[in-house]
Each structure stands twice: as structure tokens, then as C-alpha cells.
């Protein structure tokens, strides 16, 4: 292969003019107006049906479609399909090798996309967290005090939707994109452009959801139940478009992951040698590919109800509110395991490193992940136990829901037995993993209460269920998210994070997380309903306690943010290549990982968990492979 010298870097102004975020935002706003006025022109021209209906949102939808298309054009996503449509074959890569500008443009280097994801998701996680702080401020008093009822609902809805939409890609986005190709010995993802697309779609979606406040917000919470959503004001459209874009992004992300793992594993990397993290990604990705389309379809129906006056969800017009509930939860339940499974995988991936023992019961662990992923399709009506939908099927859904405890238990068993008799090092990532056991046990067992119909009758729609899912998500997913950050960010950026600040972050987060959400189980049992500004006066003490803890939790997150910015932007202490003495392949590479990942494609001879089983294996080039560096 001919080595060509890298092109001379272009001046900054020239780079700003090209396809990048700046252009994208400008074209996005432009496209929004084009869509908006275009739609009005359609109505003005009285094209058929739409103009006759006195209530429709067509222009809003066309505006957002225009905006998103403009955004993608500005980033350069249409260059490739347009070239292809003119018959030119694709260029395999558009990797910018240097310069910070690549983080603000379409970049097909999976490592750049991973880092883009980390900051992008972090941004929206932060916005979602700020919303949570506002919620807790309002709930300081049992009566309406800071926000009008409608604003409160919008805040809760934005918080829930933002978190659920963004954090589904919270681990697959940054970490799987960055690590899966490396872990399987590849140099790229199967579809690098689609990989970049998933990220930028998510950013467009996030911006759209955030701007819902300018359009009156939406009153439905993250579930968006019809027919309430049919009668809601235009802010509702932001919700619908947000979730549809997130759905598309999720489908493509999952598709890309599966294709990569299926086709691009390096020689010798058999299914039983795959790092457990990759298994977790695979089982999550399957759920993403299959569940997200159902959500998109449901939102599509909702869109038609709001624009074309169809009556999918309007009982008075031959539709049914149950239809939306069914479709939403067919997606919604797999969705919650999309949040949980990567967390399981990270715990199982990290415990061997910090206990210095092989992962115990590899096959059982894989079986657990796949089992959860399979069972999660058969439980969705546990969200509808009192809704009157299929009352006779409740025993079945009770059983199937409780069965999920069994494969989830496998993760617990394998994790615990991995620690057993190891040499545990209480590093920051390890602490977060250990906290996962505590949090997820409480979250999971409270889920078992909810899955029991007689118990659910009282706890449904109360803060008990709210505490349940914050324990599973915040305590399960977000804790492992941070474990992953402390564990892999030094690898990804090449700079160390401050360990002492990390420990402060961990302990404050662990303590205040529990003191925020545990009391809410009691509040829920006492009958505090979700999504309201008012609650019984006797619950005020509990709620004040929770609010104060939540603010302290917020401060603990700021400690983290400070650590991140301080260590990566100011201290810049270079990280060792293998700070944790891990046997995993990504730690055998330099930090940060070079653009091409490997000089030669490695050949695997074992899984990465052989602690106590001899020296780290050497990865060798296959016989007769073309030499890499000459």
C-alpha cells in the first residue's frame, strides 16, 4: 500500500466554512423555516384534506423535518448518498486524523465518535439532571409553590424523556463505539458513517426536546399516553420528534453494533472468548434494533392523529387508548433493559480486573444477559396491571416478570463469585461496581413487589414505582456509567482522572443517592402520587429530606464534572497504557489509542480474564498476513 504524506492542515477559517457543526446549525435553523413556511404554502394552496381541518400540526412537523435535514446536510451526511446516487463508489473512510475540529464534524473514526458521544450525552444528562433539581425544588412544599402546574409537568416530562432517550445510548454510545472494535480486534465499525449519524441524530433530537419549553411544553410525562397527547399543544410535537429521532438513532446504533460483532471479529475470537462487555452490547443491541421500531411506529400513528386526523387512539372515533399503551410498553419494557444490560456487562467486565480472578461462570453470565434480553419481550403489560387491559392475562405477566429475576440473578451470582477469594482493589471504578450490587438489589427487589399484582394496586403510579426505577437506572445504569468513565476515560483521552476527587465523588454520590431515593419508597407506600405538584401535608418532612439530599447529590455530580474538566483540560497528567494491570486488549495498546488501533490485526488465543493463569498472551499477526509497517 502506498504511503501518502498527510495533507497540509488547512487554515482555520477554511475549516469553519466546510461541513461542520456550525454550518449544520445554520442550515438546520434555515431548514426549519423552509419547512414551516412551505407547509403554510401547502395549506394556502388548499391542497386537499389538510387545509380543511381546523386543527393540524402539519407545518410543525414539516418544520422539524426541514430542520433535521438541514442539520444533516450541514454536517455533510448527504454528500455520500448523493455521490452514490450519481454512481460514484464510496470512499471507505473520512477520518480526520488531527485537530480539534474533527469533534465538531462528521467523523468516522469510531474513537472520535465515542468521545463525541461521551460529551454529548453528558451535556443532555446534565440538562436532565438540572430538571431533576427543579422538580425537587418544587416538591419542597406539599402545595404548588415555584412552578405553575403546567410548567411542572413539562419539567417532569423533559426530565424523564431526556433521561430515557439519551441514557439508552449512555453506554453503547461512548463506550461500545469506542471499545467494541478494539475489543474484537477491528479497526472500525461496520458502518462508520451510520455510526456518526446515530450521534448527530441524537444531538438534533436533544436540541428539539430542550426547545419544547418555547412551544408550551408537553403534559404527558415520558410515556406520552394518548389521547392526552392528541389534545396537547405544539410542545407535544417536540416530544414526538425527539423520541422518533432517538428511536432511529437507537435502531441504527444497535444494527451497527450487531453487524460489527458478527462480521468483524479478529481471528481466534470465538464466541466463548468474547469479552463479556461485548456480549452485553450484543444483547442490548438486539433489543434496540427490534424494540425501537415499535416506538417509532406508535409515534408515527400519533403524528397522523395530530396531523391527518386519523383516530388510532381516539375511542370516540373507532380507535383505542389501549393501543398506544400496548405499543408504547412493547417498546418501553425492552427499553428499560436496554438501560440495564450494559450496566450488568460493565460490572462483569470490571470485577475480574479488580479482583484479579477470572470471570466466574462465563457461560452462565452470557446466558443471563441473553435470558434477560429474551424475557423482556414478554412482560410489557406489567405496566398496565390496573388499566383494565386483558385482566385475565395478569397472572401470566406476573409470572413472566418475576421470571426475569432468575437471569438477573445470574449476573449477581457470577459477579459475587468473581469477587470471592480474590484480591480486591478498591479503586474508584471498583467502588462504583460494588455499589451497583447494593443499588440494583434494592431496585430489583422493589421491582418484584411491583410485579406482584396485589402489591402493585397500591404502588402503581406512586413514588414507590418512581423510587424503583431510579434505583435500577440511577443506581444501576448511572453508577456503572461512572465506573466505565473512571475505568476507560484515561485510555480514551490519554490523561488520568484524579483519584482522590473520584473517591469523594463516589462516596458522596453513593450516600446521597440512597438518601434521596430510599425515602421515596416510604413516600410511595404512603400514597404520594407521581407527576403532581401536591401531596399530603404529612409527607412534607420526607420530601424535604429527599430534596436536600437531591441537591447534595447534584453537588456530588459537580465534583465529578470538576474532576473531569480539571484533569482533562488543566492537569493533563498522561495516563499509563495499562493503569489497572488489566489483561483486556484495549489496555495493551498505547494511550490514547492510535487512529488505526492495531499495526496488525491481532489473533486471539484466550479470553481476557486469565488472571492467575500465566502471563498476558501475545497477540501475533497471522502467518502470511501483509506486513503493516515497512
Amino acid at each position, binding site marked *: 500500500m502506498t504511503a501518502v504524506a498527510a495533507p497540509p492542515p488547512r487554515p482555520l477559517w477554511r475549516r469553519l466554512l466546510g461541513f461542520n457543526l456550525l454550518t449544520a446549525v445554520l442550515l438546520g435553523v434555515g431548514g426549519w423555516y423552509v419547512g414551516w413556511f412551505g407547509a403554510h404554502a401547502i395549506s394556502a394552496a388548499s391542497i386537499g384534506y389538510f387545509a380543511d381541518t381546523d386543527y393540524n400540526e402539519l407545518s410543525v412537523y414539516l418544520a422539524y423535518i426541514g430542520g433535521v435535514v438541514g442539520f444533516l446536510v450541514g454536517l455533510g451526511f448527504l454528500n455520500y448518498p448523493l455521490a452514490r446516487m450519481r454512481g460514484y463508489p464510496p470512499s471507505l473512510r473520512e477520518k480526520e486524523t488531527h485537530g480539534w475540529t474533527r469533534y465538531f464534524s462528521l467523523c468516522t473514526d469510531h474513537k472520535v465518535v465515542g468521545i463525541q458521544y461521551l460529551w454529548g450525552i453528558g451535556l443532555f444528562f446534565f440538562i436532565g439532571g438540572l430538571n431533576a433539581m427543579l422538580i425537587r425544588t418544587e416538591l419542597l412544599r406539599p402545595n404548588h409553590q415555584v412552578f405553575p402546574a403546567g410548567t411542572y409537568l413539562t419539567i417532569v416530562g423533559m426530565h424523564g424523556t431526556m433521561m430515557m432517550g439519551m441514557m439508552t445510548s449512555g453506554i453503547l454510545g461512548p463506550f461500545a463505539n469506542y471499545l467494541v472494535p478494539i475489543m474484537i480486534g477491528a479497526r472500525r465499525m461496520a458502518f462508520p458513517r451510520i455510526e456518526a449519524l446515530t450521534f448527530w441524530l441524537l444531538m438534533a433530537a436533544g436540541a428539539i426536546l430542550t426547545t419544547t419549553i418555547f412551544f408550551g411544553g408537553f403534559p404527558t410525562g415520558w410515556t406520552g399516553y394518548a389521547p392526552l397527547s392528541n389534545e396537547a399543544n405544539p410542545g407535544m410535537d417536540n416530544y414526538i420528534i425527539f423520541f422518533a429521532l432517538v428511536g432511529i438513532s437507537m435502531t441504527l446504533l444497535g444494527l451497527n453494533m450487531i453487524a460489527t460483532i458478527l462480521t468483524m471479529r479478529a481471528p481466534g475470537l470465538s464466541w466463548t472468548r468474547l469479552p463479556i462487555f461485548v456480549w452485553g452490547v450484543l444483547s442490548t443491541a438486539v433489543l434496540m434494533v427490534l424494540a425501537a421500531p415499535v416506538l417509532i411506529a406508535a409515534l408515527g400513528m400519533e403524528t397522523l392523529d395530530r396531523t391527518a*386526523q386519523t383516530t388510532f387512539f381516539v375511542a370516540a*372515533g373507532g380507535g383505542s387508548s389501549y393501543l398506544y399503551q400496548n405499543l408504547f410498553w412493547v417498546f418501553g419494557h425492552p427499553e428499560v433493559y436496554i438501560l440495564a444490560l450494559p450496566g450488568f456487562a460493565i460490572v462483569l467486565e470490571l470485577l475480574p480486573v479488580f479482583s484479579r480472578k477470572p470471570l466466574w461462570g462465563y457461560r452462565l453470565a452470557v446466558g443471563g444477559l441473553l435470558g434477560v434480553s429474551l424475557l423482556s419481550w414478554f412482560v410489557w403489560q406489567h405496566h398496565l396491571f390496573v388499566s383494565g387491559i386483558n385482566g385475565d392475562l395478569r397472572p401470566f405477566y406476573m409470572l413472566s416478570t418475576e421470571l426475569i429475576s432468575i437471569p438477573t440473578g445470574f449476573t449477581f451470582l457470577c459477579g459475587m463469585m468473581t469477587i470471592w477469594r480474590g*484480591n480486591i482493589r478498591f479503586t474508584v471504578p471498583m467502588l462504583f461496581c460494588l455499589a451497583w450490587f447494593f443499588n440494583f438489589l434494592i431496585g430489583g427487589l422493589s421491582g418484584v413487589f411491583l410485579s406482584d399484582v396485589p402489591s402493585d394496586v397500591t404502588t402503581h403510579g406512586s413514588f414507590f414505582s418512581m423510587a424503583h426505577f431510579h434505583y435500577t437506572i440511577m443506581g444501576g445504569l448511572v453508577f456503572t456509567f461512572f465506573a466505565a468513565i473512571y475505568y476507560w476515560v484515561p485510555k480514551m483521552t490519554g490523561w488520568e482522572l484524579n483519584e482522590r476527587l473520584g473517591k469523594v465523588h463516589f462516596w458522596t454520590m453513593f450516600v446521597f443517592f440512597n438518601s434521596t431515593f430510599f425515602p421515596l419508597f416510604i413516600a410511595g407506600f404512603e400514597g404520594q402520587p407521581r407527576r403532581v405538584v401536591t401531596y399530603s401535608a404529612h409527607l412534607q418532612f420526607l420530601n424535604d429530606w429527599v430534596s436536600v439530599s437531591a441537591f447534595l447529590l447534584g453537588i456530588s455530580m459537580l465534583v465529578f464534572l470538576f474532576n473531569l474538566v480539571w484533569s482533562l483540560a488543566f492537569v493533563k497528567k498522561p495516563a499509563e497504557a495499562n493503569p489497572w494491570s488489566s489483561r483486556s486488549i484495549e489496555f495493551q495498546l498505547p494511550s490514547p489509542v492510535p487512529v488505526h488501533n492495531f499495526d496488525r490485526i491481532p489473533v486471539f488465543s484466550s479470553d481476557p480474564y486469565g488472571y492467575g493463569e500465566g502471563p498476558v498472551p501475545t497477540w501475533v499477526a497471522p502467518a502470511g498476513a501483509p506486513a503493516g509497517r515497512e
Partner: protein
Amino acid sequence: MAAEPTAAPATPSDSTNHGLRVVVAWIVLSAIATPLVAVFVGHLVPPGNGSTQGTEQVFDNTWMLSVVTPVICLLAVFFVYGLRSFHAADGAILDGPPLRNDSRIQILWIVGTSVTVLFLAGFGTYELLQNGAGGGQGPDPIAVPAGSKLQVQVIGQQWQFTYRYPALHGLESNQLVLPENTDVELHVTSLDVIHSFWAYELGVKADANPGVDNIAFVKTKGPETFHVRCAELCGLWHGYMYNNGRVVSPSQFRSWATQQEKLYASIAPFMNKSAADGGAPYARTYLPLPSERAG
């Protein structure tokens, strides 16, 4: 790179039977904790004894608590013991024994969790089928208490509940008053969006969907006041969609009924006809006709 880890000796030097210790501690702890939880925490769990269904839920929750207590104990013992005994000496990175599997432990765990889970599901189903546990069961309930029942229709709309008593000539009121020690059959429906009828002390919750007759059963006990609250997000004033209901003696119930009938006499002719007058027992005509829909 950090210090190369040194491999551990092939056989662990300490011959303590850690496993046995953990198991014994677990059994002792569970044996103490479970009865304590059942007795002292069990009766605290809601919704209390405001109705037969409420009592049933408390009983159910008590059982659940008793079953999960040993699970919690197991993890507590394991982690307290494990993290104290197996941490590395400062700075040392020493490989542990390469244990990769033990099928006996796996089988024990799988059997243990499966039995627990199946028991819970079976128990829950049994409790559910007793008398529906107060949950909305849809138009064709599977758990129907025997005997005669007072029928009440609960009609949700943005943002209040209306109660219709077919037995009282289709009386409609915005107060929910029930006679004591009576089996009540609630028919929950909605005129607009989804609401959820939640009578906390009675242990009743049933969603109100437009065009759906969602049936729930409750057997009242002694006189009391209970809270009714909407438990499904239904728009702007969802948070204010609540009021109180009462369980009263039969004579008080009768006098309340006559008083209400008098109160609403002037509008009675405009209401849906009652069953006795040839109308339907339940208002099914609340659905706005399609011709009246906007658009």
C-alpha cells in the same frame, strides 16, 4: 506500566472454609431477621385495613417482605464478609486463584431463585384470584367476589370524578359515599383522556379509559374517610384531581342518598335514564359522537 502481577500459589495458603462461614452466618441472620420483619414491619405496609382488599394487600406485602429478607441477608453477609476478607494488601497486585466455575453452586443458585420466584408468582396469583385485590380488571373480571354487590360507576373527566349509582335511580354525585361492610362493584370509565381512580385506604386502583368499562371490586369495612386521587397523568390539573370519600353506616347512606336526590332533582330530567326507567345501568353515551368531534 504498573507492576507486573505475580501469580498466586496454586493452592490457596489459608484453608479457612469461607463458604461455610458465610452460609452459617446467612442462615442465622435470616432466621432472626425474617420473623422480625414479618412481625414488626409487615403491619406497617400500606394500604392498611380499610377494606378486605386492603387487608389482603398488606398480607401480600408482608409475605413478599418475608421472602426478600433472606435474599437481602445473603447479599449483606456475603459482601460484609467478602470485602473484609478478600481485599488486597496495600499496593500489591496479586492474582487470585483462577476459579472459573463450580456447577454445584450454579445449580443451587438456579434452583433456589427459581423456587422462590415460582412461589411468589403462585402466591400472587392465588391472592389475586381471591377477590381481585382491588385492581381494575377490565370489562370481564376474572376474580369476582360471590354475593350481591352495590354497583357504582366512576366517571373520570378532566379534572374530576363523578359517581353514578344505578341502584339509586342513576343518581350522579361528585361525592363517593359507600355503606359499610358491603361488596362494591366499581365501573370505572372516562370521558376524555386516561385517568386512574385511586382510593388509597380502600386499596383500590383502576384506570379510567375512554370507552372502556373497567371493573374493580372492594369490600368496605367500618366507617371511615378515605382519599380519592387520580393516579394517571391527565393533563394540567391532574395534581388537583382529588377529594375525599366516606364509608358510612347503612342508615346514613340512605339519608345521604335522599338528600342527594333532592339536591339534584332539578337536573335529573337531563341525565341519562336509570335502569329502572328503561335506561342502561351505566352511562355509555358519554362518548361524544363523532359528529361532535372537532375537525
